[in-house]
């Protein structure tokens, strides 16, 4: 009885995982730092601790560089499990990661290994379009709270995270993901409804016919399957086009590209020169340091190398290249752009396209 009372009232013991940025070590140049452990809350953990009040205690913070995590994943996984075994927290929290891809995957992976191997609840928070959501949302003992795309949402997320930690840490049952404000985990739980299915269905149908909002009980996920294109039969006879997401445009930005959240793409004629000249082109992109690509646009559209390869490895180059600014582009815009670019490539009888990464 005494033990039970203590279990009900002691602060929930939390281990918090952060990357090198939110851990206060540094930005991209520090992404190679290894896993370290600090006592108590750090960075966003300070805000989380404040939101939890006396209900929880962040006993330790794990900080790891995003690059190190992905290059040494097995080592980090083992180290995290050792620390969790030593400190015996009630719950592990990772992030929030917002729309950061590598950080999101690291948060998901840390939660997964602790959930599966240490058998305890784990929580992370990120933007619903973060690639880690689809990878980790169905893992048992792992819950994902949806956030905005950027850390601007931090202030709003931390109290929600604290509420979820209180429930999980106290072993309280959670309702459906929709009611709890969580990303759905694809789990079905049996419950008893107050009205029979036929009545509920008719109510929904009437609402639908009246144009009123209603909530389906059987959401259908539209998972898109994209069949890969067939391989290029012989590159030496193929007509190759180039696409860049670096926001490469003629000097003066004639089409008004924006540095973020692209809403348009354009097609520009390649110059009749052996390479691109930085004086004729401009980089409209808010996601990387454009100084180098500005000085040498061939870094983001390798015309210099492609010209050398024509006749040897490549049949011919399409006379145009396609350009879009790939920073925070919405899926809908990207899809429209992709379809339109593909149609244009088809009209020009292009056999293959090189999408240059930035």
């Amino acid at each position: 009885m005494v033990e039970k009372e203590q279990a009900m009232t002691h602060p929930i013991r939390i281990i918090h995982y952060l990357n090198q940025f939110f851990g206060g070590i540094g930005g991209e140049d520090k992404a190679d730092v290894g896993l370290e452990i600090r006592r108590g809350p750090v960075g966003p953990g300070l805000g989380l601790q404040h939101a939890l009040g006396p209900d929880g205690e962040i006993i330790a913070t794990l900080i790891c560089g995003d690059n190190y995590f992905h290059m040494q994943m097995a080592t980090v996984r083992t180290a995290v499990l050792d620390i969790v075994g030593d400190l015996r927290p009630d719950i592990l929290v990772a992030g929030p990661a917002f729309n950061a891809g590598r950080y999101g995957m690291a948060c998901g992976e840390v939660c997964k290994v602790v959930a599966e191997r240490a058998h305890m609840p784990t929580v992370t928070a990120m933007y619903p379009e973060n690639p880690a959501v689809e990878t980790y949302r169905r893992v048992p003992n792992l819950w994902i709270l949806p956030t905005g795309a950027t850390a601007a949402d931090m202030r709003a997320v931390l109290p929600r995270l604290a509420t979820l930690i209180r429930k999980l840490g106290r072993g309280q049952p959670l309702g459906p993901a929709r009611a709890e404000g969580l990303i759905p985990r694809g789990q079905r739980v049996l419950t008893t409804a107050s009205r029979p299915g036929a009545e509920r269905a008719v109510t929904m149908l009437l609402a639908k016919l009246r144009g009123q909002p209603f909530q389906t009980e059987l959401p259908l996920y539209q998972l898109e399957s994209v069949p890969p294109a067939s391989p290029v039969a012989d590159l030496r006879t193929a007509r190759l086009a180039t696409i860049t997401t670096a926001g490469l445009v003629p000097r003066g930005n004639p089409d008004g590209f924006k540095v973020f959240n692209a809403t348009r793409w354009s097609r520009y004629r390649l110059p009749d020169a052996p390479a691109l000249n930085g004086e004729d082109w401009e980089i409209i992109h808010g996601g990387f340091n454009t100084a180098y690509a500005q000085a040498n646009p061939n870094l983001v559209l390798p015309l210099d190398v492609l010209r050398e390869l024509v006749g040897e490895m490549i049949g011919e180059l399409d006379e145009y290249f396609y350009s879009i600014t790939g920073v925070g582009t919405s899926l809908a815009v990207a899809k429209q752009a992709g379809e339109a670019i593909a149609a244009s490539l088809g009209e020009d009888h292009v056999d293959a396209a090189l999408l240059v990464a930035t």
Partner: protein
Amino acid sequence: MDLEDQGAIKATVEELGSDDIVVILGSPDPDAAEMYAETVTLGDPTYAGPLAGVSLRLPVYNIFEPEIKEQIPPEVYQEQVAMMEMVLPAEEICARVRAVREKAGVSS
């Protein structure tokens, strides 16, 4: 705002006081501008940097705002800034920074 910049601003205020310091932002999107403005007024909202929990309440403006723009020689503004003002959502950026100033009760 990266950790080095936050540290530099904090150290500057600790050394010189905050009376004669104005922060001018060149942030390219509204979310970042709002976050940076909050960082130097109410404290780092992401809790990542040295200004987490530190309210410096410095006057902060984006370079597109009239208070700053009118102090720059027009030909210099035209050459260095006007192009970016055209391609970025300048109005929203300015509105968000202004809103943070009002929330924090700071002005120069």
